[in-house]
């Protein structure tokens, strides 16, 4: 077992690696965590995710913009790729599968990829359909995988109008499936009107929403750990 000081140092390295978009530091930190016998889930959440939370804050404060976030995401993945194979399946009471994609007519996928990243981090099984995805494919993939969450993204107003059709079709076949819509033209009102369960209007919001969800999972995990002590 690693001692607390060492652990803290490694988490700090992972966290700063993400914030300073330093892929090498994240790779090193991840390897060090494994070598020291630290629980990889802990390294992901207290190191990488903690860094991404700070990135979200910096974005909101307009210190960081999208290029920085993308570089931070690369750094996070550099660490995650090393840690993930060693993660035990998190027992958090949800199965955690999500279908995600950008709707037909839209080839923008940055926001979608950031949300996907947070699901990856949280240990969800992610079925990424990519971009410019025909609407029926979302419905088919949800049915095929029985995912409890579907995320639809659109950057352009012109492609967003296809969303209600998908939502209606999915809800008709599977009323319990949660649907999150995202992208610049979306809003809370629109999400309600379209019959969606959640929304995120931009990458920062998408990131925030996804972080919120992951932070919630993290809380559950901590509570579970405390209960087991």
């Amino acid at each position, binding site marked *: 077992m690693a001692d607390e000081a060492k652990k803290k140092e490694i988490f700090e390295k992972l966290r700063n690696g993400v914030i300073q978009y330093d892929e090498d530091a994240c790779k090193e930190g991840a390897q060090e965590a494994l070598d020291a016998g630290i629980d990889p889930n802990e390294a992901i959440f207290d190191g990488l995710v903690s860094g991404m939370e700070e990135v979200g804050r910096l974005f909101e404060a307009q210190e960081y913009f999208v290029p920085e976030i993308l570089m931070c995401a690369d750094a996070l993945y550099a660490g995650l790729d090393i840690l993930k194979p060693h993660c035990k399946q998190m027992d958090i009471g949800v199965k955690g599968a999500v279908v995600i994609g950008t709707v037909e007519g839209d080839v923008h996928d940055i926001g979608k990829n950031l949300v996907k990243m947070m699901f990856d981090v949280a240990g969800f099984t992610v079925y990424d359909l990519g971009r410019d995805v025909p609407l029926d494919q979302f419905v088919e993939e949800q049915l095929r995988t029985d995912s409890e969450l579907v995320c639809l993204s659109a950057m352009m107003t012109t492609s967003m*109008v296809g969303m209600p059709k998908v939502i209606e079709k999915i809800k008709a076949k599977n009323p319990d499936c949660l649907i999150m819509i995202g992208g610049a033209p979306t809003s809370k009102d629109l999400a309600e*009107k379209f019959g969606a369960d959640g929304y995120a209007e931009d990458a920062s919001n998408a990131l925030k929403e996804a972080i919120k969800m992951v932070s919630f999972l993290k809380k559950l995990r901590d509570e579970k750990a405390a209960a087991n002590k």
Partner: protein
Amino acid sequence: MNSRESVLKLFKGEEIHRVPCFSGMGNITEEGINKLGYKFAAIHSDAKKMAETAASTYKLFGFESGVVPVDLCVEAEAMGCVINVYPNAEGILYPTIKEKLIHKEDEMDIKLPDNIASSGRVPLLVEAIKLLKADIGSDVAIGSYVLGPFTLAGQIMELNDLLKLSFKKADKVAKLLDAMADAIIIVAKEYEKAGADFITVREMGATSDVLSPRVFKNLILPPLQKIIKEIKVHSVLHICGKTNDIVTFMMEAGPTAISVEQKNDVAETRKKLGKDALIFGNFDPYNVLVSGDETLVRTTMRQCIDNGVSAVWPGCDIWPAVPPQNMRAMMDEVKNYGGKR
């Protein structure tokens, strides 16, 4: 004084009797398409259909400009990208780029094809502008648009890579954007020759939601200045999203007018740029014009005018599914209220 004279006077900075309501971006409506009996996907590859559809917004609602193109893929296609017009789509889907030109960083040093003016749909657009001008050009101003250098670069290579490289390898990106500017100038010149009265440069990708004002100034402003300097007719620089921190740079790019959307605080922009600056905007074309009711449309038009826009103008393309009564309410409100300021 008809709409055309009044809009042209506005561009020249002369007094006009009321705030006009027009756009330099897409504004075709389903109402217009259906009346003509065309399929949306067919408009993009037929100059006559394109021009007729573009003219219908003026003819049906009195909108004070006629604008082609309808989609955003003309420049990328002329440079060799393959586009998808979704020929079998049930509803309306705008064309997108299927094939990028640049797939990795070391392909960024591209040489422009030497026949851009005669490639892809540039000749078709030239024809469409001429037809549109012959049809309604004595009544309203004829507009056309080109993309901005960053937005075009984001179409011909992965936006993800472009964004990261604007941070990591600004020199390489600057060089690419300069080449984009050259391509855009060639297309804009063709539109000018065809008779466009004004050209809008749409640099949607360089919004402050995505790029910092610092990167905008260092990387985006120089190629924008290069393009706008070459446009001899009136020019409008449009940027979506947050723009309050870059409106001064937008003016420095040298356009006749700037265009901003609903996220811009226009009253503040007016204060910053002074009473003579031409500021077009800034209502939400979807949440107000398409999904709002007539009352929301009318109050929003008043707000735009009260906040000090020089012309009431949508923040982006007007989505074709706009209810006809909302189009009428928009025109009616601007015509009644726009002279009272």
